[in-house]
């Protein structure tokens, strides 16, 4: 990874983690119990299954102040509700494709599979995701003025000519 500048170092990203109750939430628990460290930047929200995750929850997290989202679920073939995690994967991939058209970098929304036994692995993945989002910088910048802002014609000339 490239070296981070001062702004990136001072920036503490907020990452919302949508976790499945059966595997990844337990993995996160296990990580805590076995003292595998993961950054406090992640705010975990527990679902019964990754298949419950409506794409609008991710949009609302991003709109509501998160700098990124991490979705976790059981490994393919291990979902407690049969194939719901495949559905989660399909939604995630389609959402991410669409988010790129809204100018969101792919690293802002990620998906990781983790079984209940993979506490250390999950802790490591959370750290990786948080660092990748830190490197991207804040999603909401102070310079993002209200959406219908007017832009002076002089600036427009400068920008386009």
């Amino acid at each position: 990874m490239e070296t981070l500048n001062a702004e990136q170092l001072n920036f503490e990203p907020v990452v919302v983690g949508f976790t499945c109750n059966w595997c990844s939430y337990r993995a996160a628990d296990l990580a805590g119990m076995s003292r595998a460290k993961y950054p406090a930047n992640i705010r975990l929200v527990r679902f019964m299954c990754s298949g419950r995750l409506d794409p609008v929850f991710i949009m609302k997290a991003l709109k509501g102040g998160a700098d990124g989202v991490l979705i976790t679920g059981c490994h393919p073939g291990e979902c407690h509700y049969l194939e719901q995690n495949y559905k989660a994967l399909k939604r995630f991939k389609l959402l991410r494709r669409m988010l790129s058209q809204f100018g969101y970098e792919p690293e802002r929304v990620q998906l990781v599979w983790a079984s209940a036994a993979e506490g250390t692995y999950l802790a490591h993945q959370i750290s990786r995701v948080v660092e990748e989002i830190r490197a991207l910088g804040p999603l909401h910048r102070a310079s993002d003025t209200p959406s219908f802002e007017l832009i002076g014609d002089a600036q427009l000339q400068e920008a386009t000519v």
Partner: protein
Amino acid sequence: MNQNSKPKLAMYWASSCGGCEISTLNIGENILAVDELFEIAFFPCIADFKVKDVEGYPDGYIDVCLFNGAIRNSDNQEMAELLRRKSKVLVAFGACAHQGSIPALSNLTSRAATLETVYLDNPTLDNPQGILPNTQYEADEGLLELPTFFNTVRSLGQVVPVDYTIPGCPPEPHQIWTVLQAVAAALLQGAELPPAGSIIGAGTVAVCKECTREKEEKQIGRYYRPFEIVPDPERCLLSQGIICMGAATRSGCGALCPQVGIGCRGCYGPPDGVDDQGAAMISALASVMDTTYPTDNGNSLEQQIDTLIDTLADPAGTFYRFSLANAVLGRARQPASPVHK
């Protein structure tokens, strides 16, 4: 009836294509009843009214104003504010006023990029001096002013409070006529109006519920654009791989498009209980993606999904064709550029 005791009706177009007016006139001979029931107070499409006429009315003078078109520039905004003040009941009429519709698709890009395409970089242009529209121009007759073009298109409800919404691009004439009759009954006979804020002239459920095509549990290996496939006349379009927004769109049109073999484009906006048409559409499309589930190789599953998604051109523009101004995500993020510093 004496002219002055008739309720006053207005219809105005902001950033609009004129289709909403056409649809209103398409209520057929009922248009004569409209003229009988209402006094037209402002309707630039059909009669010569000036803005200063409206400015001269007392506040609340217009009983019902049907406002179509999105808010794209400062003139649209001023007219929205003026008509809000002058109208007792302000109706967001049609998809543009409801959720931005086609004009709001430009929220996926920026004002600078839009003006560049329109005035500077386009094969059909002849603009060697690179002249861009100015908001002020010093002419011999004096200072001329043009509206300011906004960076982001908004829906009417994002600019002023709206009493009712009639969705559709355009709203269906029979729905318009039903609404006008209900309004006249309320104003003339004291019948009750629907609760403020309601969506009127439409259903509450999804277009799929009105669609008579055979629904089936089926998954597909790719999506098709309309020119790539001849649809089966009986079966659900989505289960044939044709993008149909029926599951993410409010009923009320009678499933017009799927009935003739065209996927629903989503013009009535999301149904009750759905905040975001794009999110609902992602779920609907994910549920028909066929990926035979390999248990030993996660990678190939991912590749399969990617290949399937590759057959879907322009997801954002498709899912939000009529609702981008009200998307939960708002407008597209803009890269830091000289314009946005």
